[in-house]
């Protein structure tokens, strides 16, 4: 496995994200910057040191994701009138999924947990990008189909259901695309018992599962007669998925850290 130098990471990441983010985001990035600075790095890190460094990096990336999701709940209210997560839920959904998508792409591009393939021509990159987009769209459609099969209305509220599928894909498929590339075989491999080949794969397993379980749990309050605004389809499910994703982001570094002795990876 190729070991990255956090120095490269921070400079590139800074430049790219600075252009997009607001002031808070810069602040968060500065935090990230400080922590990356303190990472131990060298020519070749072996064994547990390497793993610890990776776990730390994973942790910071995840914290950054969580902070950005939290920020999406109130930053847009500065720019948009009448913005609130519950009342203008679809707007929030779009913003949140865009934000998570951008951060995922940028961070993973910069952190590059998995070595990229040897071929790196422009054409190859573009084809990968296109393929990724197509895969993402297909996964949205698949999620939509599964949600409808699960009992969501078929014709009414189609936009809501589709946006729910989009945010679910953002939490599950997009990290897969970033980490593993448009390679279904690799995805399927990761989601088997002994399929993980790095801590990134493990964290992918945990975040994906927790997002899906969160969305699943989010369906439970819908029949209750509490008549709260968040019981309306699909708000509780999207919120559940978001909380599940955030929980997964928090849990995965902790779990990996606690099980770091047991985790041994075969190189492919």
């Amino acid at each position, binding site marked *: 496995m190729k070991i990255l130098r956090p120095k490269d990471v921070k400079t590139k990441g800074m430049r790219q994200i600075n252009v997009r983010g607001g002031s808070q985001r810069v602040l968060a990035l500065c935090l990230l910057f400080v922590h990356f600075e303190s990472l131990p790095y060298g020519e070749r890190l072996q064994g547990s040191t390497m793993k610890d460094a990776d776990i730390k990096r994973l942790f910071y990336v995840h914290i950054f994701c969580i902070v950005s999701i939290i920020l999406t709940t109130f930053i847009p209210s500065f720019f948009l009138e009448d913005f609130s997560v519950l009342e203008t839920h679809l707007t929030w959904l779009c913003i949140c999924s865009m934000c998570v998508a951008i951060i995922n792409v940028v961070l993973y591009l910069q952190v590059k947990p998995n070595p990229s393939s040897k071929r790196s021509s422009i054409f190859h990159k573009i084809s990968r990008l296109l393929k990724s987009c197509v895969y993402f769209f297909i996964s949205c459609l698949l999620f939509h189909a*599964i949600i*409808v*099969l*699960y*009992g969501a209305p078929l014709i009414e509220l189609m936009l809501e259901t589709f946006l729910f599928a989009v945010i679910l894909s953002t939490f599950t498929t997009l990290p897969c695309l970033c980490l593993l590339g448009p390679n279904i*075989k690799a995805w*399927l*491999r990761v*989601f*088997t*018992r*002994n*399929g993980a080949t790095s801590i990134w794969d493990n964290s992918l397993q945990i975040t994906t599962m927790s997002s899906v379980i969160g969305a*699943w749990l989010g*369906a439970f309050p819908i*029949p*209750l*007669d509490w008549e709260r605004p968040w019981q309306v389809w699909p708000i509780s499910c999207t919120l559940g998925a978001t909380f599940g994703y955030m929980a997964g982001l928090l849990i995965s570094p902790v779990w990996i850290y606690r099980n770091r002795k047991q985790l041994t990876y*075969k190189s492919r």
Partner: protein
Amino acid sequence: MLKALVLLFLAWVCFLFYAGIGLFTSGFLLTRLELTNHSSCQELPGKGTLVGSGRGRRVVFMGDDTWEGLFPGAFSQAFFFPSFNVKDLHTVDNGILEHLYPTMDRDDWDLLIAHFLGVDHCGHKHGPHHPEMAKKLNQMDQMLQTLVEQLENDTLLVVAGDHGMTETGDHGGDSKPEVMAALFLYSPLPLFPGASLKDPEVVPQVNLVPTLALLLGLPIPFGNIGEVMVDLFSGEGDTQPLATALAQASAYHLNAQQVSRFLHAYSLAAQDLPPEELQHLQNLFSSASSEYEQLLDQLKTGEVREADIQALISQLRLFLRGARTACTETWARFRPARMIGGTILLASTCLLCLITSRLTSSPDFPFHCLLLRAVVWGLAGAVLLAGGLMAAGIGLEPSLLCAGSAATSLIAFLWALKSRESSSMTVFLPGPLPILVLLFLRSAALFSDSFVVAEAWAAPFLLRSLSLFLVAQLHWEGRLLVGVSTACLSSPTASLARREGPRALGLLVGLLLCVRLSILFHRCPEETPVCQSSPWLAPLATMAGGQAKNLWYGACLGTLGVLVLAVRFWLRRCGNLNSPAPPVLFVRWGLPLMALGTAAHWALASGTDEAPPRLQALVSGAVVGLPRAVLALAAIGLGLLLWQPVTVLVKTGASSSNHIIVPFVGPPASQADLDYVVPQIYRRMQEALRGKLARGGGQTPLALAAYGLGSVYSAAVVTALALLAFPLLLLHTERISLAFLILFLQSFLLLQLLATAVGTPAGSPGPFSVPWLAISAWALTATQTFYSTGHQPVFPAIHWNAAFVGFTEGHGSSPVLPALLVGANTFASHLLFSVGCPLLLLWPFVCEGQGSTKRKKTLASGTEVGGEKEEEPLMEMRLRDSPHHFNAALLQLGLKYLFILGVQVLACVLAASILRRHLMVWKVFAPKFIFEAVGFVVSSLGLLLGVALVMWVDRAVGSWFKQLILSQER
């Protein structure tokens, strides 16, 4: 002053049904007083009491003959007409119309009751939006017009509906359209003060009785807690407000006196009215009556102000309403001791099921000595408890005693178990974590009224989650798709996965689709604007359009055809359709005949009204006869199945090695031919000789082919299910047959998926067991099917029409047969799924043989099985090879299924008893509990039948083997 008055008439929700059943099933006991009181709320509110107390008056009755049984001899003259047949719209009404006007003209009556039934029956049969309903309403309008014209000046006409109807024409629930009816009062003399028609006053139904009683000059019936309608009381013909107010006050006072007497008597008889409430009411009454006395005194002496009277009236009204609220709130009485006893009994039974299902896997466990000990302990516990109860001065409660003995015997059993083997807590855990989570969710959902109402969605949700989880787990273990990580897989599993992977995915998608489609047949628990019942639940007879009706009928026919063909196809594929056994012949010819009968019945039933009058008699005869014929056919089929359950075709000498290959016809011509044939003849003779020898020694196998032996058990169960399904299909409305088709498809897919995913027997002779996951999925499917066939666990949603399938004329007085028919309709899914439960055990073995194209099993009459014959799939004969494990597995399967159902019933019981003061207890929890409990009983019976059927087949197969060996030896 107006001549007429229209009011909104609010029916009381009847607890009658709940109370009657509640007596038998639980600790809920409504007091007798309530029963008598509420029996008056079902039909006309005066029925229970007014007629009874009106002995001095001449009461004439015409209409519904149920009044005859309720008030024998109460009427001076009566015209009764049979009313039990809901489909009959005209008999009662025409009978009344014939007698009504002549009676009106005579002068020998004080009260005339005419109970029209046509509109109610029309609502049940056709729904509120049918042309028939328009005809019926027009007829009623005409009747009223004539009546109003003929009315004399001293007569009051009261037209009351006893209940409303839902969009489907049913009633009995407590939704607004069901309890709202109209009350129309008309008098040729202007009597009534002006009231707006737009927003009529709401009058509870119990108010009619005291009003009519006072108007007729009768005492108000003792048990009534209604309030007089003061608008009907006015002063002596003039319009003086003072006299009117006085008349109203005296009417109220009479009413209040009666209610106060009733409360007093009631509080002496039963102590369940809260004393402070009672005291408050008494104070209210005494102050009001003293005020009334004062008023009367003032009236004698001089002027009375109207405001005083009005104040008195409002005070009396306050008392009356307070009394009514207090009574309704406290008239539900509970027996906590019985509740606790029942709960303990159920819980210990569930625990016993769980533990025993664990123990069956260790076959040498000594059950016999434990049984004796448990019985002794249980008796001892019961005696001790009885002694304790007697000592404490509480009467002997049978349910508590049962619970005590069950609990002590269970404790003794556990104690013995612990001393025998050091078993840990795992005995108490039903299955792995996901099953625990599922069971927890399932039981917890029964404690929330919202989830009980939404169970129609919750059960399929859990089922989908379970099946998705199953496939996800399959993938997680690397068995779903190959080429991913072959490194960590051994080669046989990989080859297994190559075959299983896409199939499992396809099965999953099919299953999800089926579950989604079955939602289309849901019915709403009550009429709400949010939830709309499926329009397909109504019978085809209520459809007006010709084209759509024909299309739907075609679809139902297609469903029948597909069902028959699917059963035949499956049996043919298993090779069980070849033998000349009578059940096979029945499946070949009887099943299509049953489908034909069903289709013909549907055609006639949906178009009865359109038949030409000449054929009317024929059609009505066929409508009665066809369902009975189908039922009889099903009974014959089941009888044949029990008589000869082995559907196996035997072919002797089918093995190819026994053929003499003769390439020519005629005598051998050349030496070469002889060279070819003679050795074969020799070999053949040698074999025959060896076979003769083998009879003595039993060494060499003699080959013969038995078609369908590998699936002999499942073929019997599938045939039995098909035979059961047709009569049940007939009891439902036509279009639910589509739901039945989906149900069969879905359970087939589920079985295939479970067989693919959960546990292939993999050739092990060891203990067989059905995993918890499969059984939970099966139970969930049963629940889902209950809802997807248009049922709901509330009484108004029962398909009462099922009682008239094949009995259009009604049943006479015996309630057994209609109860059976309605019960079979309601609990069809419970019955089918519990009878089909053994399929869970058998299906993996059936699927084992699906890989190869051969559908026969070669068996050897000797002890050994030849080398090349071992490759043939043994299928269900694996079970026969180890009969002890087979029996244990059947027992375990039954226990596990019972446990899962029992936990649901337990949760319902707990919910209903813990939440007995909940707002929704009569509307949601109690009906759910009753349905779940009856469903549990039906499921247990069905399970017993299913397991018994498999064991019967096993016995028959055993004797078949014996016969075979005997015939081979001969």
